[in-house]
C-alpha cells in the first residue's frame, strides 16, 4: 500500500527542525510529524493509519545521533539507531540492559534504520524500549521553539501510542543514569509468539546483588497496559531478600499489580497477567544470576 501525500522538510540542525515543527504546526495549523528512521511510521503511512501533512526528517542532523558519557549518566541522541546503540561501547559498558533489549527489537534491517528516540517517542506499549527507559529512570530531553524541558520516563509515556510530547516538541536526547555501584545484573525477558512478533509481555529488569541479597531492583513491564508499567510492588518485595528462585517466584507474584493488560490476538488480559508473573520471576533470576 501507498502513503498519502505530505510535504517534506529535511532540516540540517536541531534549531531548524524545531523551527520546522513550529512553522508547520503552530503557524500553518498542519498535522506535522517528525520522522527519524521511520521504521514505526512507514508502515502506518503505508496502511494509511497516519496522515501527517508535513514530515520533518531528522535523518541528517548529526548532532541528534551522538552517544556520550555525561558523568553519572549516558546521553543517547534521539536518532542514534538501534544498530548504533547495540555496537556502542558506552552503552555496552554502562547500560547493558538497553543493549539486551535493543537486540530483541525487530530484525537487523529494521535496527539499521530504527532509532532509540523514535521507539520512545512512538510510545507503543508493545515496544521493548519504553519499559527499559522506565526501569532505568531515564530522563527525556525535549526542545521546541518555546524552549527546553526534561521529562522523566515515568511521566513521558502517557497512554496508548501517546507520549507527553507536544506537537511542536522534538525529543533530542535521552539521559540514562548509569547503574551505580558494583553487583548489577540485567535482563530483558521478551515473550513473543514468533521471532518477528511483538512482545506479548516483556520484562525489563536490573538487580543489584550484594552479599547474596537484593540491594536494589528495577523492574518494568512491556505491553501490560496502555503505557509501560513500573512493577513497583515487585521491586519492593524483592529488595532486601536473600536471592533464591523461590524469593523471585514470590516477587513475580506481584507483577500484575497495578497493570491493565490489553487483550488482543496474541493474548488475553488474564493470560498476560499470568505471563507477567512467570516472566518477572525468570527475569529477576536471570538478572541476579548474571
Amino acid at each position: 500500500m501507498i502513503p498519502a501525500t505530505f510535504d517534506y522538510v529535511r532540516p540540517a540542525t536541531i534549531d531548524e527542525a524545531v523551527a520546522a515543527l513550529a512553522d508547520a504546526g503552530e503557524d500553518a495549523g498542519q498535522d506535522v510529524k517528525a520522522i527519524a528512521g521511520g521504521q514505526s511510521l512507514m508502515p502506518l503511512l503505508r496502511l494509511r493509519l497516519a496522515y501527517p501533512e508535513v514530515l520533518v526528517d531528522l535523518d541528517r542532523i548529526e548532532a541528534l545521533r551522538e552517544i556520550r558519557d555525561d558523568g553519572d549518566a549516558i546521553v543517547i541522541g534521539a536518532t542514534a539507531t538501534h544498530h548504533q546503540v547495540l555496537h556502542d561501547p558506552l552503552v555496552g559498558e554502562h547500560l547493558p540492559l538497553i543493549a539486551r533489549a535493543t537486540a530483541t527489537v525487530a530484525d537487523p534491517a529494521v535496527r539499521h534504520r530504527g532509532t532509540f528516540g523514535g521507539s520512545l517517542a512512538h510510545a507503543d506499549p508493545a515496544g521493548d524500549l519504553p519499559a527499559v527507559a522506565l526501569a532505568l529512570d531515564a530522563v527525556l530531553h525535549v526542545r521546541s521553539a518555546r524552549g527546553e524541558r526534561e521529562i522523566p520516563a515515568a511521566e513521558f509515556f502517557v497512554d496508548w501510542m501517546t507520549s507527553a510530547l507536544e506537537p511542536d516538541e522534538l525529543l533530542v536526547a535521552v539521559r540514562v543514569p548509569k547503574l551505580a555501584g558494583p553487583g548489577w545484573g540485567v535482563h530483558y525477558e521478551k515473550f513473543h509468539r514468533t521471532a518477528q512478533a511483538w512482545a506479548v509481555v516483556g520484562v525489563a529488569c536490573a538487580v543489584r546483588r550484594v552479599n547474596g541479597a537484593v540491594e536494589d531492583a528495577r523492574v518494568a513491564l512491556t505491553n501490560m497496559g496502555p503505557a509501560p508499567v513500573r512493577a513497583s510492588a515487585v521491586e519492593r518485595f524483592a529488595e532486601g531478600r536473600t536471592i533464591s528462585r523461590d524469593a523471585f517466584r514470590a516477587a513475580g507474584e506481584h507483577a500484575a499489580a497495578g497493570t491493565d493488560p490489553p487483550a488482543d490476538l496474541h493474548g488475553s488480559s488474564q493470560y498476560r497477567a499470568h505471563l507477567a508473573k512467570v516472566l518477572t520471576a525468570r527475569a529477576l533470576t536471570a538478572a541476579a544470576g548474571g
Partner: protein
Amino acid sequence: MTEVGTPRRRSEDARLVTGRTRWTDNLQPAGTLHVAFLRSPHAHARITGVDTTAARERPGVVAVLSGADLAAEQGSLPCAWVVTEDMKHPAHPPMAVDEVRYAGEPVACVVARDRYAAFDALEDIDVDYAPLPAVVDMERAVQDGAPLVHEDLGTNRSYRWVFENGDLDAAFRDAPVTLERRYVQQRLIPAAMEPRAVLCEPDGEEFTLYSATQIPHILRLMLATVTQIPEHRIRVVAPDVGGGFGSKLQVYGEEVLCLLLARRLGRPVKWTESRSEGNMAAHHGRDQIQRLALAAEADGRIRGLKVDLLAGMGAYLMLVTPGIPLLGAFMFPGIYKMGAYSFTCTGVFTTKTPTDAYRGAGRPEATYAIERLMDELAAELGLDPIEVRRRNWIGHGEFPYETVAGLTYDSGNYEAATERALALFEYDKLRAEQADRRERRDPVQLGIGVSIFTEMCGLAPSRVLGSLSYGAGGWEHAAVRMLPSGKVEVITGSSAHGQGHETAWAQIAADRLGVPFEDVKVLHGDTAVSHKGMDTYGSRSLAVGGVALFNACDKVVGKARVLAAHLLEAAEDDLEFTGGRFSVRGVREAGATIQEIALAAFAAHDLPDGVEPSLDSDATFDPGNFSFPHGTHLCAAEVDTETGRVRLRSYVAVDDVGKVVNPLIVEGQVHGGLAQGIAQALYEEAVYDEEGNLTTTTMADYLVPAAPDLPSFTTDRTETPATGNPLGVKGVGEAGTIASTPAVVNAIVDALRPFGVSDVPMPCTPERVWRALNQRAEPEESAEPGAGGGLGSAGGAR
C-alpha cells in the same frame, strides 16, 4: 540413466539469484494503466449507492467503475466442481453489484496513470452500505433461523455429500472402545510470497493476460467462458510465479476485471495486490469443524470410523471450493484397515473470504483427524502410539489394497519407513527422557508426536474426476521438439511456480533422449507455447506431467528409430539405443546419434515413405489411479508448562515418494511442506471478529514463521516405486504439510497427558496450551483489536 536420481542444481536459479526475473509486476508495457480496487469494509451489507464522481475528477484517473457499471459484461466467476446435483451455487460477480458478502470483496475500481494515483482515488469513492448480519460461526449458520449469507438460497447449506461403506452401526454396536472427538481445522491464509498480480495487454480484439497463476490453461478457458471472449483470442501467460500453494489455483475476479478493463480502455492494465489486500481477498484454506467417532476392539484394532464435517465455503463457491473437503473424504481412514466407514460433509456459507485449495487440500484435514484419533486410541488403551498404528496399518505384503474408502493403494511399505524414522529419531532415548522429566516434574515437559500418513496425489485419473462431478479431466500433456541443431525443447502443460520443473523435466528428457542436460530447454506457462495442459496442483506435476514427458520422449525415440534403421540400412529390431546413439547390435561403429537423426529429419532429403519431416512428438498421460506417497514423521516438542510455549526440539521425516528424479528438489519440497504444516499447528490462523472483520490482514498479525521459529529437520527416504506409471514416481509437494500438523499436535498433547490434557486447539498458541493446562481458568475473552500494542492493533512497527 544418469540424470534421473541426481541432485542436479536447478537451472531456474540463475535468474532468481540475480534478480533477472519476470514477475508479473515487473512487466510494464508502454502505456500501462494501473488498477486499484476499493473493497468492502463490511462482512455483509447491501450496497445502496456508489458515487464515483469525485474520484473520476482526480488528475491521472482514466476510469472509475463500480460493479453496476460492469454488471452487463462481468459474468459470474466459475465453480468447476458441482459436487451434488442439488448443490446451492450462488452467482459470484467479480465485482459486487448490490450486496457484499465478505470484508474485502471488490466494490469499485480506479484505473489511473500510475499506482499512486489509482490508490489515492479510492478514497474519493463514496459507497453507501446498509449493513446486514454477519455469519461467522459455521455451527450457528446451519441452525434454523440463522441469518443467511444468500437470502435467495433460503439456507446456508451449500450441499451435503455422503460416502458410506460397511456396516457402521454394527461396528459401533458393543464396541469395546469408542471415541468421540471434535477437531477444528482453523482457516489459513496461503500467503505465497509473491502477491497476486495481473497485466492484460490488448491487441485489437485479442488479449494477452499475464497473471501470477498456477493454472494458465484452465484460466484461459474460464476467462473465455466468463467474458464470452472467444478462447482463441485470449492468451494467458504465467511468467515467473512466486509460489502458490493452491492460492493461485483460482480464477479470480481481478483477473476477469483486468481483461474487461483492457478491452474497454484499449490499453494495457495492471493490478498488483498489497499483502493486506491479499490476506482479505485471495482465497483461504482449511476451515472445517470435524466431528469424529471411532470404534475399536480392546486390542486397538479399528472397527469403524464416522466422520461428520462442516466445511466452510466462505461467501461464494470458487473454482474448486466445494470439492476440497471431498479430497479428504477418501483419506480419513489413512493407512489403516477397518470394516466400516461413513463420511458426511456439509458445505456451509459464511460471510468470510471464500475458501479453496491450500497445500494438501482436504488431505491434511483428514490426516490430522485420523492421526490425532490414533493417539487418542493409544492413550485410551495404554498402548504405545506406534504399536496401535502397527496393529491397524496395511502390511507391506497386503498391497495392492482396497481401502474402506474405496481407493486402491498400489504400493507402500509403512514398516520400513517407520523403522527408519524410529532409528533416526532415537525414539527410545526420548521416551526415557520424557519419563525422567515427568518424574522430576520438570516445568518443561517433553512430548513425542507420531504421524504416519499416506495421501492420494497425482491428481488425477480423469474417469475418477468425472465420477466425482469435477468439471475437467486430470491428464497432462508434454511435447518434445528435437531442433535441427540437436538441441531439445520440451513443452509441458504443467505450470511451475517454484517447483523446479525446468530442471527435473530436463533431467527426464536428457536421460530418455540421451542428450546432455544443458541441451534441453523446458517451456511452460504460456498458452501460446504450451497449447494444452491441466497445470500444477495436487502434487500432480511429476506423477502426471513428468510421465507425459517420459512418454513423449519415447515417441521421439521411436520415430528416430525408424529413421535410424533407414539411414543405417538395418532392421529396427536390430538397433539398440544407448547414450543418445543408435547402433546396430553387435556392430558398435555403425551408428547415428539422435542429433544426427534430428538434422536428417529436418533436411528431409532421405526419409522413408510415410515418415513426416522433423523429429518431435506429443503425448498426454492420464493415470489409471492416484499415486500414494506415504511417510512416518516423528516430532519431539518441549512444552513450557508455566508459559505454554512450545519449542520443537527435533523433527524426523521419512517419506516414501517412490522413485526420485531429483533428490535435492524432493528434500526441498519436504522442508517447505513441513514448515507450512508446523505453522498450522503452532502459529497461523485467519481470525475474524464477531462482525466478520478479518483481524489478521497483515504479516504482523498473521504469523508466518521465520527461520528462528522452525527447527532443523532430519529427512530421509524409503523407496517403494509407484506401480501406476513407468517412472515409479508418486509426488511430493504436499507430503510434509499433510504429515507434520498432527505430528506436532500429538507431541504437545503427549507432553501434557499426565496433566489430564487430551487436546489443544490449533494453532497451539502459548495461551491455548496454558489454558489446556489450567482448565479452570476463565473462558478466553474475545480479543479487542486496538486494545493492545503493536502494529496488529493499528500501532506502529517496533
